[in-house]
């Protein structure tokens, strides 16, 4: 399998703090790759570094064979990256429809098709189409945040802890959406819950203190309790 995204010895600072300390990562095309790790391990920072929100001070980020770490955020995103941030970051005063319309960057026909797909996947959003995003429930907001990244013909989706704070039934619904994406695009997802991660992931990385401490098949990790005890929090 070809790598769609590669990080090579990436270092990122936040202020004076050395957060990512030499991360290398390969994200194969068409698969779901999961990043696991404790709170504060640097998972969100990794996604933000890829996007150029927190540009790396050293190292390279390569997307479709092109170095992108010197580009600015909006130019990186336009290469074909969908982003579902940790705190959703919807526009609360905009309606569901406006939130999606704002995100659209491809041809109109494409978006018409994608809207249908989104309506099928999340009927709630269709029902709330003209309502401000701030009036949606937590679960619906997560759906809209995912839908916003799905509305474009993205080559990769960066999804940050989509199950966080959701009831089990909603987690399932969100994960079935991620499952659906598999056929359409590549996924790089942060997920603290190993069970949830296992249900969709092909490969995984474990981050600890800004360094990669494990990479490989997620099935192996599920069997290895020592590894889990060492590097994953109590959430397992």
């Amino acid at each position, binding site marked *: 399998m070809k790598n769609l995204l590669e990080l090579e010895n990436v270092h990122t600072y936040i202020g004076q703090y050395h957060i990512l300390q030499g991360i290398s990562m390969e994200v194969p095309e068409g698969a779901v790759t999961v990043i696991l790790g404790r709170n504060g391990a640097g998972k969100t920072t990794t996604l933000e570094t890829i996007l150029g929100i927190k540009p790396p001070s050293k190292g390279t980020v390569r997307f479709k064979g092109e170095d992108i770490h010197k580009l600015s955020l*909006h130019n990186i*995103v336009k290469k074909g990256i969908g982003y579902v941030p940790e705190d959703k970051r919807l526009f609360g005063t905009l309606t569901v429809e406006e939130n999606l319309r704002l995100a659209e960057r491809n041809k109109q026909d494409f978006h018409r098709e994608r809207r249908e797909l989104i309506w099928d996947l999340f009927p709630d959003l269709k029902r709330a189409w003209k309502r401000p995003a701030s009036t949606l429930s937590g679960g619906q907001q997560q759906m809209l945040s995912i839908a916003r990244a799905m509305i474009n013909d993205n080559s990769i989706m960066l999804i940050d802890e989509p199950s966080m704070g959701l009831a089990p039934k909603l987690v399932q619904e969100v994960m079935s959406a991620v499952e659906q994406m598999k056929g359409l695009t590549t996924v790089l997802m942060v997920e603290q819950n190993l069970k949830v991660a296992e249900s969709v992931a092909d490969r995984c990385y474990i981050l600890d203190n800004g360094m990669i401490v494990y990479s490989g098949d997620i099935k192996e990790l599920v069997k290895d309790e020592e590894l889990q005890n060492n590097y994953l929090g109590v959430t397992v």
Partner: protein
Amino acid sequence: MSLSLNGLSLAMLYFLIAAGFSLIFGLMSVLNLAHASFFLWGAYSGLAIFTTTGNFTLAVIGATIVGVIMGLLVEYLTLRPLYGNHLFQILMTLGLLLVFEELVKLIWGTTILGFPRPEILTGSLVILGRYFPVYRLFIIIAGIVVFIAVYLILNRTKIGITVRAGVEDEGMVQALGIDIRKVFSGVFGLGAGLAALGGVIGAPFLGVYPELGFEMLVPALIVVIIGGLGSFHGSFVGAVIIGLSQSFGGYFIPEFALAINVALLAIVLLIKPTGLFGIEGGH
């Protein structure tokens, strides 16, 4: 009746300044004190065009264009390098306010200049036995037309949606692949154009003099805070409140006109610290 007509025409002028002021603050967190200079220069450049061509329509269009160009230049040359640095921005825009006023004095002198009303906008209309000065009606209608036009742009077009989204979370707008700097420039240009439009249509009503910008700045600030920083329709409602209070207060107890406005401001902030239509957590 004549007082409320007077107040409403004043309100429209406040609105034309406050709208851009508020959007620029909401979007870029820039408190652009030089915004009143666009009003001032709208008045002077409009007068210059009107005296040379005798064509009022041309003066209105020309002055608005002057405002747009000034706005784009101010944003690009002086503010763009300072985004995020609030103290320097305030000093910079305060400096620009003074420079633009001195330039006016240098070019046109310090005396009050009259701006003759165009022929068709003079006189009064008689409606139901009452007299309505045509020019005031013109200002009110122009203000309402601008309000509706900008309202539709903000709510119906993708550019408008982008601006509203940017007021909430500019970082996320960029994370959707949108170059927020272009949006900043556009809003700055448009806001400056509206202020200049206010200047040229307000000039026949207020007179044209160098302190005009500064005089409009204080009420416009109050309007923006009452309406809610970053809220477009808030700036309209705030302008109507302040315009009317200014006009009535100025008539009955002129010494207290400003005090009344400040009291109104305090009351609104006590009840709703974000202003009438402000949203929480913007910046």
